[in-house]
């Protein structure tokens, strides 16, 4: 094969296998003659195979190399030029016509089988990958239920300082906290998981938001209390957040975020690893978004808890219906992580339609009283509050009274970035 050489139309680049060549092989120019095929190596050696003495084979690395061999196989010419088979058919004037067609058909069949095998292998690999993914997810879901609730509590404790520093200062009004805690305590006996120690914190922030940390700590933002129309609606938000805890949605989110590492940690019982990974994931606010399925699960479980606790679960529907209004007021946070209210309202309504009739009793304090308590707490203690800058450093000082006179629209624009 003399690459780059200009060849005549009846000459093709190829090679020769022969014991007469030093080393047994050499590149050669193949020429199609009247009676047979001749080859001339770069050293000037000449070889010849008559068409009548030529056995054809197809093979080589490309699968397209044509071998012309003598019947005793002492001499072999080979050529990979795509024009060669057709030229050979024409030159051999019928002698090799059938052989050429036979080997080309066999070659095409072989390539088709190879491609089919390749695509089948790829398909099996893709199916195995997808199956493996869903297998791991299903396995993680089962494994999560077997993890003791104390692991959730440790993750929540580890994440709490960072979460508080991001969202604002805690309001330490015992009366206000007791009032909200009273609702939680009324709901708690009806939770799906026993032994959870629910603990309410009220955050001094205008953002309409509430969030639960794994293990039972529930953060209620002052903005949410201001936005709710009734104590029952506040109860609905609390029941919803408590349900995230009992349904172990946090661990599911952590497992989804860090994937197989968390699943393996869960299986081998590496609690320290889970806590470290979990608190890190929860501190990243963007990762604390639940899926639509999880939100609907929490709505239904919350509605069930309210129903069992004797609090009218219609408040859940009213609360979900009010969310777009809260959005219009610019307080977007809870809505942004709890989307598609209409579908969720339908799900809860369906649950209520199917639920057995029951007599409900009101929550034993009024929302106005709670707001007054929170207002007193702010007016009694006008003091400097440390806020955080974008880097999470506590290095910006704001007079707390000035927080209350911020324009809600402007304030909300800043707070939209702080998704729970």
């Amino acid at each position, binding site marked *: 094969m003399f*690459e780059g050489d200009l060849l005549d139309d009846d000459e093709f680049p190829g090679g020769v*296998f022969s014991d007469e060549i030093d080393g*047994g*092989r*050499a*590149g050669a120019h193949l020429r199609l003659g009247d009676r047979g095929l001749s080859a001339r190596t770069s050293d000037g050696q000449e070889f010849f195979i008559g068409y009548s003495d030529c056995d054809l084979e197809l093979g*080589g690395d490309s*699968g397209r190399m044509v071998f012309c*061999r003598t019947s005793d196989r002492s001499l072999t010419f080979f050529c990979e030029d795509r024009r060669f088979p057709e030229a050979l058919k024409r030159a051999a004037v019928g002698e090799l016509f059938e052989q050429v067609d036979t080997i080309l058909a066999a070659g095409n069949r072989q390539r088709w089988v190879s491609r089919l095998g390749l695509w089948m*292998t790829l398909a099996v690999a893709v199916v195995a990958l997808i199956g493996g993914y869903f297998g791991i997810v299903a396995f993680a879901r089962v494994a999560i239920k077997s993890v003791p609730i104390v692991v959730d509590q440790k993750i929540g404790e580890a994440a709490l300082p960072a979460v508080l520093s991001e969202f604002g200062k805690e309001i330490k009004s015992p009366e206000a906290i007791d009032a909200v805690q009273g609702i939680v305590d009324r709901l708690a006996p009806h939770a799906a998981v026993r032994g959870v120690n629910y603990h309410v914190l009220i955050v001094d922030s205008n953002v309409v938001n509430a969030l639960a940390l794994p293990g039972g700590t529930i953060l209620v933002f002052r903005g949410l209390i201001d936005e709710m129309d009734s104590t029952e609606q506040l109860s609905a938000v609390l029941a919803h957040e408590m349900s995230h805890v009992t349904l172990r949605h946090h661990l599911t989110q952590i497992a989804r975020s860090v994937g197989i590492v968390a699943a393996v940690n869960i299986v081998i019982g590496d609690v320290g690893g889970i806590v470290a990974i979990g608190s890190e994931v929860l501190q990243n606010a963007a990762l604390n978004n639940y899926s639509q399925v999880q939100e609907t699960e929490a709505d239904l479980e919350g509605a069930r808890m309210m129903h069992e606790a004797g609090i009218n679960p219609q408040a859940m529907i009213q609360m979900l219906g009010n969310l777009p209004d809260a959005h219009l007021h610019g307080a977007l946070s809870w809505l942004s992580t709890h989307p598609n209210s209409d579908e969720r309202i339908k799900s809860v309504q369906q649950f209520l339609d199917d639920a057995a009739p029951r007599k409900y009793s009101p929550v034993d304090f009024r929302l106005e009283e709670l707001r007054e308590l929170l207002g007193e707490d702010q007016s009694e203690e006008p003091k400097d509050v440390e806020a955080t800058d974008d880097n999470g450093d506590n290095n910006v000082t704001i007079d707390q009274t000035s927080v209350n006179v911020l324009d809600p629209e402007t304030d909300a624009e800043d707070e939209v970035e702080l998704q729970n």
Partner: protein
Amino acid sequence: MEAEVRDKPAFANIRAELKAGDSIIAESDAMASMSSTIEMSTRWNGGFLSAVARKLFGGESLFVNEFTTSSSGELVLTQPFPGDIECIELKGTTMFLQPGAFLACEPGVKLGLGWAGIASFVGREGLFRLKVSGHGRIWFGAYGGIFAREIDSEFVVDTGHLVAYEPTISLRMGMAGGIFSSFFGGEGLVTRVKGPGRIYMQSRAMSGLAAWTNSHLW
């Protein structure tokens, strides 16, 4: 140019006697010793892009060194790992080398990089392979001893043992035996090669050494 491969097979190296006008091109870092009369010049391994491609996919170095002399001198070339070195002479023919096997060649040899195919990849020979063609001698190395075999029909080589083969050889992946014996007999997948043509194999596979070493690290 006179050249011999010494200390075969474990610690093989090339000793070349260069005369005026002789030249040899070698992988960077292949030179072990040379006479002071020999001059070394460094250039891209092909063009810039092909050098990068050979580095990424062919396991070769970005640069190659060309050794020449205006009088005479001795040059010793070696490879970084223990194993054999083989010399073949190309007479207008082509040879495919597994990534990292190329060591040195004479100036008439053209180096290229080609797609090796899925069969080669599954056979742990890499998705790409080096293609050497033209006229002149080439030297290539491997871990373990190198031995050649002329193939006329079909032959079975364990994955990772194929070092070089001619383009007249076709490769096909297959199981060593049935499903049970293939996976529990330790052989797994094998490469089925079909001739006519010549193949070069290594008596040890680097991947086998790596697996054996890893198993003793824990």
